[in-house]
């Protein structure tokens, strides 16, 4: 057990840091082309992801030809730490890079890999993920979007919801029911669906916070034809891909959470220096100091817990410990943002916010907006209640009812 890194790792860190300093997107280009959803690839974001790919830093654990350097886990972590320090994301289509690309690599046919893997990694195409449905939120087994199976194609009919970035995505990595007679968690398959195909209609689903800026959508699928060769993995075997997808999604997601939490804590410290509604400096309040200090411990603990499970995470395993981090991180974020609104008092009611770009809301918008948005964290990708079930049953071994 040790806190410090060895010299070779620190040398790698220095190299990464220098590279990021030289190659990160500039504020000017980011401002010029705001990112409007989680599937919106802009000029700068395509160029940035391309630079990462070429430098072997896009997916550092992968081989050169897939945008990596086959780095060992500890260097992957250091890379992520540096990305956190610079507050950089690798992609403006995170589900494409983090969930769908690994899924295609692991489950896709050679044809699909050829056609989609490199273009995804090079930010030439953008993706949305078609999992949630109105009747199947926490419960994927309840999904009812049908894909009728024909000799050389599928015909997909149904509705997806919470489809992030659907308005900008080129393709949907879409979970469909191919065998309605099979037990619920069987008979599910994954298709790659062209979002421009006839029968696809996308309708924005604005979040509680703001009507004008939308990442979520409903996607209505009405007789959408998907070629047979766009089946990912085996027919009716989508369940195992979903487990794999989520593993990819969760493998390093804690790092993003931890980084955002650090950022939130920094802004709470800045809030402490502001004048509160009663005319005192907010940080003069002992209660506020108590709460921020507690949240600071929690935010730091996110890192420590992540580091503890790190080796396992780096292997990309689905591990119930992810549920601990997901639950913990999302709930702390909610507590932190609510604390800020309460400390602001009446000032929290001014929710004017012009500088919206996708995801910025989490960091720079008025606290009340951030508080409302925090429910995304406790609801999506498995509600906090689902996470607690998983922890109780899979980590602690308590019996299912």
């Amino acid at each position, binding site marked *: 057990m040790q806190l410090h890194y060895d010299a070779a790792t620190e040398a790698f860190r220095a190299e990464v840091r220098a590279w990021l300093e030289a190659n990160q997107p500039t504020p000017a280009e980011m401002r010029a082309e705001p990112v409007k959803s989680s599937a919106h690839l802009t000029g700068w974001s395509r160029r940035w992801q391309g630079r990462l790919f070429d430098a072997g830093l896009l997916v550092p654990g992968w081989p050169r030809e897939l945008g990596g350097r086959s780095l060992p886990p500890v260097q992957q972590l250091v890379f992520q730490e540096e990305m956190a320090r610079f507050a950089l994301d690798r992609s403006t289509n995170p589900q494409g890079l983090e969930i769908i690309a690994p899924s295609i690599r692991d489950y896709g046919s050679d044809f699909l890999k050829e056609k989609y893997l490199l273009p995804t990694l090079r930010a030439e195409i953008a993706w949305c993920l078609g999992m949630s449905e109105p009747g199947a939120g926490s419960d994927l087994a309840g999904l009812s979007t049908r894909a009728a199976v024909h000799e050389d194609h599928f015909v997909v009919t149904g509705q997806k919801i919470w489809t992030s970035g659907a308005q900008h995505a080129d393709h949907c990595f879409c979970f469909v029911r191919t065998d309605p007679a099979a037990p619920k968690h069987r008979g599910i398959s994954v298709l790659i669906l062209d979002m421009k195909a006839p029968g696809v209609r996308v309708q924005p689903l604005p979040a509680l916070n703001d009507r004008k800026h939308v990442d979520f959508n409903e996607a209505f699928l009405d007789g959408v034809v998907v070629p047979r060769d766009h089946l990912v993995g085996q027919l009716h075997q989508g369940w195992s891909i979903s487990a794999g997808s989520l593993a990819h999604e969760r493998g390093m997601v804690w790092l993003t959470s931890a980084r955002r939490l650090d950022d939130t804590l920094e802004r709470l410290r800045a809030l402490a220096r502001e004048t509160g509604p009663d005319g005192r400096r907010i940080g003069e309040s002992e209660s506020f100091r108590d709460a921020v200090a507690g949240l600071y411990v929690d935010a730091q603990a996110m890192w420590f817990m992540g580091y503890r499970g790190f080796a396992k995470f780096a292997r990309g395993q689905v591990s119930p410990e992810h549920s601990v981090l997901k639950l913990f991180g999302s709930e702390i974020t909610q507590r932190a943002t609510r604390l800020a609104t*309460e400390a602001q008092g009446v000032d929290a009611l001014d929710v004017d916010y012009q500088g919206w770009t996708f995801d910025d809301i989490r960091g720079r918008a008025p606290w009340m907006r951030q508080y409302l948005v925090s429910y995304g964290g406790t609801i999506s990708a498995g509600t906090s209640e689902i996470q607690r079930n998983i922890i109780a049953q899979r980590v602690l071994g308590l019996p299912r009812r």
Partner: protein
Amino acid sequence: MDFEIAPEQQDLVDSVRAVLAQECPTALVRDIVENGSTPEQPWKSARELGWTAIDLPESLGGLALGFTALGLVVEQHGCRIAPGPFLATVTQFLPLVCEAGAPEQLARFAQPAGAGELRGALAIDHGRAAEQAPGESLRAWRDGAAWVLEGQRTYVLDGGSADEIAVAARVDAGDGVGLFAVPQSAVKAQRIVALDASRPLAHLRFDRVRVEPERVLGTPGRSARALGRALERAVVAASLECVGACQTLLEMTVEHAKSRRQFDQPIGAFQAIQHKCADMLVQLEKARATGHFAMMALAEDDPRRALAASMAKAAASDCQRLVCKEAIQIHGGMGYTWESDVQLFVKRAKTLEALFGTGAAHRQRIAALLEI
């Protein structure tokens, strides 16, 4: 001692509830929020049916039903997150005028407000409201027989739309409080992007606004008591509107839990959901009971009235904190959408939490009153 709603009060509550159900559907609120519409309801009904005059003496054309009846009506407004001038005019502007105004001022301001012909607002320092202090950001000084106001008041409910603003300012004499009635046209109002657009807020700038003697309410330097008593009414009313909004949030949540199915069951059959709902009910019952105590304490001028008002706000604060959280969470994805009405009620409740002193500010006030 009787916490049960009397039959004639229940009739009033039922009639308000029925009228609001008819005239103030949530779609009306949504239309304000989404499109900036300015419906004449439910203010029109409030005026025509005399709700604006409930707590006004008969000598001013009022119904003299007392603050208890008014509180119950406000709670019903909260249940529908009713928009419009009712809350500010009847529970903020009127109390200050009535506490501090001379007879001719009552006739000039209170009577038309009670008749629904005048829309009022109350400009105080929300950050010092729990302490009942005037705050330093707006100062007044004497200029001959008149007074001059200089400074600002922020987050004034209906401050951009009211006809008259009742104002508390810091003066250098006596108890430090001066009260004034200022025409809205005399101030510079800057409307803000408010969390709940159906509760519009404005910052008011007073650039050496001259107030003639007939618009000075009471005696500057001897007005702290009147300000305190008026704030108590505003605080209790805000608490009750908040309780009403939380009541509906709980009802919506329970309905959702009964109808939404996951894992082949209504989610309301899951113990985690049940326990959250139970905790919401407990907080709601606590806030309602405390709010009702406070409205009676004010109606009867009970010596515990200041404590009661702060307790009502603190209890409403605890209530909205939990109820808003669990309402969104239990609604799951739907609760996260703009199209769900949950967000409208949450934003109303959070707005009421922030106005006239947060729960935390009122808890500090309670501690001071208890000499802790």
